[in-house]
């Protein structure tokens, strides 16, 4: 704990608290900061952090963005990172972790989609929703890093999909960290509410500008109401100087459908917590992940499916390819609580190691307290199939190309889970370029 520049964080925290001390957000922050101080950074001894060390991340002197999102990020930089073919999307830009309305473009109508800063939402007509739902993830991700995000909730975003609205244009969250002059700590915070019978597609990408280090510590809380459909996509292809701890916490408070895909291609130390909390009966969730790692990248995917009520269905498929000295982690927890009879919960994690120096830790955790359920899990760690490789080579295809073809095939069924066509093409192109660059 002494590694963290506590004084600096404390100073910044106090500064922030003076803005509007009686506000609800201020109370949430206060609790967050208390927890941050109390918990201390997780170490290997913490089961949830057994395979990922974050202490190095906190040894750097990060710059925490000033309250007034004072950024040099310009519109033209947004044009550069925009995913081709996504010109019709709603674009929410986060500059150093703060929602930047002036850089953002909302294309859906207000009858369909409401986008506000968290402060606006907490003080306006969505006050009750914010009070009720902001911060619920802390019950599940009970560590100092999550608490650090909560300590600095400011300039976050509130996304509300209006009841009964099928929102055709996906909502893209473009996170940009400007590490040109300082190491930067970006802490985006978002609350999303997909109301009854709505459909919402969320996409997140991350980009660090500059050669200093960035650390994005994100919390995204999503609430899915009755009969709503939520799709969530996260594509991580930032530089090796970009580290990330992100929690996507999805609560299905009404009988609904959730679909998540997390694709990780590059970065420094990355931890993705993807949680699905099934609070009512009859929920359905599909979770997919793909991580293609090289160099010294470290990617840790933690998933949680919490079945609290009967007749819920979840299916999880995560796949990874580790090259170089990279390390992968998959930890998949499935809770089936006593009331959650007739649960169907499935989980699979497949890994390919391409190098002798790469490694992966895979850990399924099923905790079942009901007696009439169907649950399964399976994980594999292996190498590329030599027979298949030889077959392709025996037809005149180079070893490198054959390997790329096989890895692409391995990744294919995850790529196909991206239901936004331009995003799928973008991810596919990144993956193909990556696989061919490797060879």
């Amino acid at each position, binding site marked *: 704990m002494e590694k963290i520049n506590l004084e600096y964080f404390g100073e910044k925290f106090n500064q922030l608290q003076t803005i509007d001390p009686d506000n609800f957000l201020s109370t949430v922050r206060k609790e967050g900061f208390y927890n941050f101080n109390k918990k201390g950074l997780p170490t290997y001894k913490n089961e949830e952090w057994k395979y990922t060390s974050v202490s190095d991340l906190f040894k750097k002197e990060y710059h925490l963005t000033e309250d007034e999102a004072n950024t040099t990020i310009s519109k033209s930089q947004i044009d550069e990172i925009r995913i081709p073919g996504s010109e019709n999307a709603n674009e929410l830009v986060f500059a150093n972790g703060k929602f930047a309305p002036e850089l953002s473009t909302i294309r859906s109508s207000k009858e369909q989609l409401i986008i506000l800063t968290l402060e606006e939402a907490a003080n306006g007509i969505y006050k009750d929703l914010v009070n009720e739902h902001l911060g619920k993830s802390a019950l599940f991700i009970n560590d100092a890093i999550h608490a650090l995000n909560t300590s600095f909730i400011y300039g976050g975003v509130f996304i509300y999909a209006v009841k009964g609205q099928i929102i055709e244009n996906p909502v893209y969250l473009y996170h940009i960290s400007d590490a040109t002059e300082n190491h930067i700590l970006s802490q985006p915070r978002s609350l999303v509410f997909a109301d009854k019978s709505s459909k919402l597609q969320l996409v997140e990408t991350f980009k660090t500008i500059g050669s200093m280090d960035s650390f994005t510590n994100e919390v995204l809380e999503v609430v899915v109401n009755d009969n709503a459909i939520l799709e969530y996509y996260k594509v991580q292809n930032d530089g090796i100087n970009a580290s990330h701890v992100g929690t996507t916490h999805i609560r299905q408070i009404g009988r609904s459908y959730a679909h998540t895909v997390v694709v990780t291609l590059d970065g420094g130390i990355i931890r993705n917590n993807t949680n699905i909390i099934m609070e009512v009966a009859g929920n359905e969730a599909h979770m997919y992940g793909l991580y293609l790692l090289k160099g010294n990248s470290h990617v840790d995917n933690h998933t949680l499916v919490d079945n609290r009520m009967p007749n819920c269905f979840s299916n999880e498929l995560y796949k990874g390819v580790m090259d170089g000295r990279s390390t992968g982690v998959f930890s998949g927890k499935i809770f089936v609580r006593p009331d959650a009879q007739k649960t169907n919960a499935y989980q699979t994690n497949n890994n390919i190691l391409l190098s002798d120096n790469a490694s992966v830790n895979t850990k399924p955790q099923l905790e079942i307290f009901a007696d009439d359920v169907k649950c399964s899990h399976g994980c594999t760690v292996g190498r590329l199939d030599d027979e*298949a490789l030889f077959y*392709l*080579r*025996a037809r005149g*295809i180079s070893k490198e190309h054959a390997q790329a073809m096989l890895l692409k095939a391995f990744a294919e*069924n995850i790529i196909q889970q991206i239901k936004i066509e331009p995003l799928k093409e973008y991810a596919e192109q990144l993956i193909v370029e990556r696989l061919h660059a490797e060879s």
Partner: protein
Amino acid sequence: MLSIKNIHASVEGKEILKGINLDVQPGEVHAIMGPNGSGKSTLASVLAGREEYEVTEGSVDFLGKDILELSPEDRAREGLFLAFQYPVEIPGVSTTNFIKTALNEKRKYHGLPPLDAVSFMKLMKEKMNLVEIDKSLLTRSINEGFSGGEKKKNEIFQMAMLEPKLTILDETDSGLDIDALRIVASGVNKLRDENRAIIVITHYQRLLDYLQPDFVHVLLNGKIVKSGTKELALELEEKGYDFIKDQFSLTPAL
């Protein structure tokens, strides 16, 4: 075209091929027969460049090149084709894309530009008719869920597309019913010409009925112990391998 001289090869330290000599000229069809474990498939693997086989002695000259020095892909690009005994299922890789990639890598090797989409489709269509393969198979992943016969047909289709100078059919007849055997054999026959050679590895006479080899060699215990014309195959079919084993004082027990 192909000149194998005194090839010795072993796998995991065990010697399987113990001095094979074979010469193949353009236009010829050679059959290599022999009982299980005699080294037939090992010979095919050594020629195609499977890495687990170590050649300890001898040389293989293919069109003036020492192919033992070449990678499997370069051997294929030089015009060698192995029709696999057990074609591999590769989920997620489309057959069409696979063949297109293979064809274009071969063309690139020979300094030719890649085939454009229209010419490729035209070539596909032509060869599909030649080997009587169903179009739907080619839109699927490589061999995934194919029947035994479909897999073998796919091998012959790939052969047709890649137009190799030397084809090795490694027990292509195994697992085929009579109709599939006829179709596969007729596909091979249509691809025969005076510039191409074929080595047929088989246990049985039946494929040879269709292919009518110019030469038949009997492989026993890692060596070619007898060579002859197609009548030798008939004799083997009739008498079994034992008569040759007796002749060479080799019994399975040894």
